[in-house]
Every structure is written in structure tokens, then in C-alpha cells.
């Protein structure tokens, strides 16, 4: 790792100047120069060279190093969400590449600092990760590497079971438990004739009914969790019978999962924003005549779309450009929506010039789902030539299915919802009154991958130390998958269907 050469330092301050001029608001950014091995190393650690030891980082590294060596992919740049922000440049890249990367990095950095979904992330995560790593190392020394490592494996297999809205929900969660529940009224049947009261609502029946309702209420109150719980990891940290080091490790995995979550929720926006700004800064300011071809080459590589594959860089930048144009020309609102004349729409220009303002607003308060939901319009979809794909069962190949806007949009949103992960809840910590753990999968059209689900249940059983089960739907039939510590069973479970209706 090395500091920048004076030449690159000058470039950095030059480009930072442009970024400020355009209104970007970044943390202090430290660039460091690394060779490709170091780049692969840092990248496999998710940007943090100080993570806890685990074999999967080695696997990532193996994979990246190979694809780099074979020339399949190249990591140009890496930037992490901390204050100050750290970014890594690849040694041996041409000057124009480094400029592009710097401009791109400032885009990311502004996004990290100003997007609402990053607001609650720990900006001193480098220290946090280092502390976590030190603790994990200590546990490994005390309890053995493989014991701790296999426990980390289990925790990692659950690290997508978190609540993406936990941060926003934080305040309401902490409401105090109400002291005494209100008196329960037994259902008294209405009667207009006083002398019938004793027959219609006999006192002993009323008393029994009251008792029954009270017991039900009580059972409900004792039930854990009170309502289905999205934050499965958090629930396990609190309630699973774990050794203290195990609870700490699980907490570490959870903390890091939450830290990386916003990056998954805003991938398209984040890359789109950074690409928008590298393009703007390079083409209007930083680019020298001799560098145009090299720049175009690099930029087109980044923006390339292969059929059948979505490029978040491309989708993001085009959406931002579209927004800018629409709010500059006033292509929104009631008048615009109701005007159906193609000629009028083509030449529509209210000279509002609100584009830039809108851009900054969008980058602050949207995430990928809301971003696409609001700005992925039929016009845009058609212009950008989107289509849906489908696997042809006979030939086994993936084919173009059609260009129906509603379907395209629904698919896209479906893929992004809940950062692309299934909805899994903790339903009952005392399932069948036997202390078993019951999870539920809210089925929204796509089945779970069964072999993985089985393995994950094994991990849950390891943590809960009692059988664990999952209610889900497989091939449109409600099922329960359960691991009892010895074997996996899959059985029909009608209750799985009723859960969410």
C-alpha cells in the first residue's frame, strides 16, 4: 500500500474541485495505491483489510485472483463507506483511468454521506471491524479455530435474515410494555327485555367465557415473539441458549450484515450516481484531448450491457439522466400525464431547469425499490429496450419473452424487494409447546432453494439447540421442513398457507 504520487495528488485535488463545484458533498477521501494482489485481498474482505479470519474470504480471494489473472475481470476501484472515506486505486492503471476512478469515487462518497439509508451506518466501521476481528481471534485461541470457524459458518448462513427497516423502526420498537392489560369483557349478548337477561346471558357462562378469553390473552402475551419477527438474527442473539462467545460472534455477524445492508438496497442508485458524476466530471471538466479515446473505451466497458443481464451502472446512470431531463423540461405532473399528443410530448419544454435540484433530492431519500418504482416509466423502458426473459423448457435456453412494461417493472421490483432475499420471520419460539423454533417464509411466488434450506435448518438447530422448522410453500403446496437434530423431514402443513392471508 502506498500513498499517491505527487502527480496523482494534484489530480485528486483538481477532481475534488470539480466535484465541489457541481455540488457534491463528500467526506474527506483518502486514496491509496495498491497492486492487484492487494486489491483482490481488500476486495475479498469487503473493503476492510481488518476482517475476522474466515475461509470464505480466502475463497473470494482465490476466485478474484484467478479471474484477474485470466483477464476475465478487473477491479478498478474500491471505496468504503467510512468517515474519512477510504478508496483504493489500482497500480499500473493509466492516468485517465485513475481520473475516471477518482471522479467515480467522489460520486460514491457523496452518496454514502447523503443518502438516507446510510445515515445510521457506523462511519467508523474500520475500527468496529478491527475490534470484531480481535475478539474473534481471541475466541479462536481459546476455543479452537475450527470450533469458532464452523460456528461462523452457521451464523453466515443466517446473515440475510435481517430486517431492512430495523433502523427506521428503531424508535417504535422500544415502546414500553403497558403495565396492566385492560379488564376483559365477556361477550354479552344484547337483549332488550330485562327479564330474559338471566337466560340469555347466564352468569356462570359469562364467567366461563371471561376466563377463557383471559387465558387466551395471557397465552398470547406469553407467546414469543408477540408478532412475527423479521430480525431473526437479533431474535436469536437475545433468546437462543448460546455460550457468551457464541452470542458475541452471532452479534458480530449481525452487526456487519446490517452495515452492508444499505449497499445492497441501493446498488443501482449508488452505481448510477457515481457513474453519472464520473461521466459529468470527465466529459465537461477533467478530460484532456489526448485522453478521449481511452476514456470512451473504459467508460463503454463499464456501461456495457449484455443481452439478458442487467448492468446496474447502466440502468442507474440512464435513470438519473432521464430524471434530470424530465425535471429540466417539466416532463411530469398532471398536464404532462394527460397530454397524449405525440408531437406535443416530443417538443414539451417548460424550461423549469429543476433537473439538478431533483437529482440531489432523489439521491438523498430514495432506495433502489422506490427509485425504480417512481422513475422507471413506460417511456424509459421502451427507450432503453428492456425485455423480460424466460427459460424455454424444451431447449433449456433462456429466451426473450416480451416487452410488456408492467411485467418488466414487476419483475425488476420483485428482484429488488427485501434486497433480493426471501421474507423469513420467527413465528414461535415454543413451537408445539416443546421449545422448538418455528420460522415462516412468506411465499410471494418463488420457492426457496430446497437443498440450501435444509442445510440452513441444520444451522438453526445448532444455534437453538432444539429442533427447528420452517413453514414454506413448495410447488404450490404448503410444507413444513423440519430438522430434529438427526434428520430432515418435509411434510404437508396446511397452516403454512393460512399464515399470511
Amino acid at each position, binding site marked *: 500500500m502506498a500513498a499517491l504520487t505527487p502527480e496523482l495528488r494534484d489530480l485528486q485535488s483538481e477532481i475534488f474541485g470539480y466535484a465541489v463545484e457541481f455540488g457534491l458533498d463528500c467526506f474527506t477521501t483518502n486514496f491509496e495505491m495498491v497492486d492487484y494482489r492487494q486489491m483482490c485481498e481488500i476486495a475479498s474482505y469487503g473493503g476492510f483489510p481488518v476482517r475476522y479470519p474466515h475461509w470464505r474470504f*480466502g475463497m473470494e480471494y482465490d476466485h478474484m485472483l484467478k479471474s484477474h489473472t485470466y483477464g476475465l*475481470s478487473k477491479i478498478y476501484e474500491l471505496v468504503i463507506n467510512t468517515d474519512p472515506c477510504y478508496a483504493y486505486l489500482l497500480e499500473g492503471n493509466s492516468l485517465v483511468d485513475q481520473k475516471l476512478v477518482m471522479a467515480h469515487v467522489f460520486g460514491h462518497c457523496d452518496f454514502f454521506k447523503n443518502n438516507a439509508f446510510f445515515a445510521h451506518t457506523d462511519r467508523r466501521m474500520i475500527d468496529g471491524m478491527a475490534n470484531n476481528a480481535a475478539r474473534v481471534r481471541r475466541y479462536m485461541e481459546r476455543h479452537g479455530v475450527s470450533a469458532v470457524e464452523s460456528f461462523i459458518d452457521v451464523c453466515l448462513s*443466517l446473515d440475510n435474515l435481517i430486517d431492512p427497516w430495523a433502523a427506521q423502526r428503531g424508535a417504535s420498537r422500544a415502546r414500553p410494555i403497558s403495565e396492566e392489560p385492560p379488564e376483559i369483557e365477556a361477550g354479552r349478548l344484547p337483549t332488550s327485555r330485562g327479564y330474559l337477561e338471566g337466560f340469555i346471558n347466564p352468569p356462570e357462562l359469562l364467567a366461563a367465557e371471561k376466563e377463557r378469553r383471559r387465558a387466551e390473552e395471557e397465552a398470547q402475551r406469553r407467546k414469543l415473539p408477540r408478532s412475527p419477527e423479521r430480525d431473526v438474527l437479533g431474535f436469536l442473539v437475545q433468546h437462543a441458549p448460546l455460550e457468551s462467545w457464541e452470542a458475541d460472534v452471532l452479534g458480530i455477524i449481525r452487526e456487519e450484515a446490517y452495515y452492508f445492508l444499505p449497499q*445492497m438496497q441501493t446498488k443501482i442508485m449508488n452505481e448510477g450516481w457515481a457513474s453519472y458524476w464520473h461521466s459529468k466530471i470527465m466529459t465537461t471538466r477533467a478530460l484532456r484531448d489526448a485522453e478521449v479515446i481511452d476514456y470512451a473505451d473504459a467508460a463503454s466497458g463499464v456501461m456495457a450491457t449484455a*443481452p439478458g443481464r442487467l448492468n446496474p451502472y447502466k440502468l442507474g446512470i440512464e435513470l438519473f439522466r432521464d430524471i434530470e431531463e424530465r425535471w429540466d423540461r417539466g416532463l411530469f405532473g398532471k398536464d404532462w400525464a394527460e397530454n397524449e399528443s405525440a408531437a406535443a410530448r416530443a417538443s414539451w419544454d417548460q424550461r423549469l431547469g429543476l433537473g439538478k435540484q431533483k437529482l440531489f433530492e432523489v439521491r438523498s431519500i430514495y432506495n433502489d425499490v422506490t427509485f425504480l418504482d417512481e422513475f422507471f416509466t413506460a417511456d424509459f423502458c421502451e427507450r432503453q429496450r428492456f425485455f423480460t426473459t*424466460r427459460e424455454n423448457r424444451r431447449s433449456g435456453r433462456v429466451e426473450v419473452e416480451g416487452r410488456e412494461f408492467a411485467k418488466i417493472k414487476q419483475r425488476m421490483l420483485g428482484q429488488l424487494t427485501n434486497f433480493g432475499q*426471501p421474507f423469513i420471520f420467527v413465528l414461535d419460539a415454543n413451537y408445539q409447546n416443546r421449545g422448538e423454533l418455528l420460522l415462516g417464509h412468506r411465499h410471494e411466488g418463488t420457492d426457496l432453494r430446497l437443498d440450501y434450506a435444509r442445510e440452513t435448518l441444520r444451522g438453526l438447530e445448532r444455534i437453538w439447540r432444539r429442533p427447528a422448522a420452517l413453514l414454506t410453500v413448495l410447488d404450490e403446496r404448503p410444507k413444513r421442513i423440519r430438522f430434529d437434530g438427526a434428520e430432515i423431514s418435509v411434510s404437508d402443513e396446511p397452516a403454512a398457507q393460512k399464515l399470511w392471508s
Partner: protein
Amino acid sequence: MISRIEQDHSRFREIIRGKVRQNLRKYMARGDIIAPQGKGSVTIPMPQINIPRFTFGDNSGGGVGQGEGQPGDPVDGAQQPGQGKGKAGEGEGDKALEIEVSLDELAEILGEELGLPRIQPKGVHALETRKDRYVGLRSTGPESLRSFKATYKRALRRQIAMGTYDPRRPVIVPIREDRRYRSWRTDPRPHSNAVIIYMMDVSGSMGDEQKEIVRIESFWIDTWLRSQYKGLQSRYIIHDATARLVEREVFFRTRESGGTMISSAYKLCNELIDAEFDPEHWNVYAFHFSDGDNWSVDDTSACVRLLRDVLLPRVNLFGYGQVESPYGSGQFIKDLRGAFAKNELLITSEIKGREEIMDSIREFLRRGR
């Protein structure tokens, strides 16, 4: 200091090795991991190295793409490796679940798993050759080895230091002290001093499955011996009623229909040792695979004679592997066992099917010769 990633990386390799070891019997029974000749590694399919999660299966009913195309047009290459700016830690990505393991590593795993002893090479003076490599520079030497670049640089440096260098007229005149010559180092290289002679019965009774078993066995024998000897050589002999020396490819592909005279192969093997591999200097390994159906009792006794008198005294090991085939009588192995019950140099092994390849290899190699 070893960097962190190196530790994690070696941990990852360890896990892979553990998996390979666990499933070694399975891998040994299949032919598809066998490396092409000359490639130093094998590719091993590795199920489930990824961390399992509750994730979506693949019945999501398709995706979204961008670009030209009519409904029904195939969308090519769902996973085209493009030039991209990958950002780390985002998404798992589909990884090829194939792991590359070098042959050395594979041999090590094989050795550990089967408990194979290291081989004590025969003959103390391993042959060595010397090889010269140009590695550096020195200030004397023949003109033919003069390094122009180094000489020029030194001359330039000297002229700048002396102040006689004129950028407008950049003439460089080297003097004797500027001259640099390439120098070499002599590396001793242990000469290849082991040879495996494979013999195989290709008569009509040996079917494709039998040959496949032989191919897999020979791969593992190769792998192990190669890890014990630098630069191991192999020779291949096929025989039916007559024997021929062939190339590796021919060895595994040939199919004849004639009868079987095993002695023809043993004779040829003997001649080969005479001609090329003096047992004084060479560690000779001979392996013969057959379905155990020999032409006549006379020929079998000729084989026994050949083995006892000329072959066994000259080889480190003679392995006979009998592959079960629906046509063979399987008599030959009984004859051999009868004749050489006490001889440690001759090892016989019956291979009933692919599952038994591992046991057979262990049988052949466990004596450490």
C-alpha cells in the same frame, strides 16, 4: 509476516483438501477428473462449498434483460464475464463449483488418505545432469555474451558523471570498465530415474469399462509415483497374442480381437528394460492389467518363468491388476498367486469394479518400493 489473506486462503485450500479426502473414493471411481497430459492440475467438481442460506430457487419464472431482440430469440450467455468494475462484498455471485487442485497436492492427499509410505529409491547415486541458466551480469566475459543494454547504461552513467555527455549530441562511447557480460549459473538437475511400464491386455474380452478402469488406475499410479520421482517416464505396451510398444493415446484406445498370450508382453517389457532402462540406474515399475484369461497353460508357465528369472530381479515392483470382465476366466491371478506366494516384489490385485480402484491402488503402493 504472512498476510491475513494468505492465512484465509490456505484455510480455504485446507477445507477443499478435506473435502477431496472425504470423497476420495468417489473421485477415484470417476474418470472425468483425470488431467490432460502435461497440465499440472486437475479440476474437481466440488458440491456445496458455498454457505447455504434461505434463498430463492430458480422457479422465479425468468428475469429482465436489456437490448435488441424479438420474443423467442435466445438470450446468450447469461454469465458473460465482461469488463466490469466489481465492487466487493456485494452479492455472492455464482461461482463455478469446480476447484483446481495441483497434481502434487492430489498426490499428497492420496498418500495421506491411503497411508502410503514414501518410496526409498533404489540406487544411491541418482543421475544428475547440469543445466546452465543465464541469471546475472559480470564484468568479464566473451564478446558474444556482451549485454548491450547494461553496457550502454553504465557508459551513459559514467559519461554523465564525468560531464562528457552532451544531450544535443548523445554519443556514448563505452570503455572497458563499462562492459557487462551475461553470466550463468549451473544448476544440478536430478535426472529422471524412474520409469513405469504399463502393459495391458487388449484382446477381445477386455471391454470399454475394463479399459476405463485401467486408465483411472494408471492415472493414480502415475500421480503418486510422479510425486516421488522427479521426471518420471512412462512406457506403454499392449498385447493380445503379440505385444507392441505404443503411445499413451493408442494404449487406451486400441481394441483387438485376437487371443491372449501374456508372455509376449513380458518378453517385450524385458527387452525394453534391456535396451533403455538399466536397472543399475533406473527404478523400474511394471504394471500389467488383464482380465486374467491366458491362451494356454504353457504360456502361463512361460510367464512365471520370465517373471522369476528376469523381470522380478530387475524391477522395484511388479503389479498385476486383474479387471473383472464377463468373458475372462480370471485364472491367471490364481496361477500367479500360486507361483509367487512369498515374493514381495509381485503384487496382485483384483479389481471388480470402479469402486475398488482405491483399494487396488493402496494394495499396489503400500509397500513403499
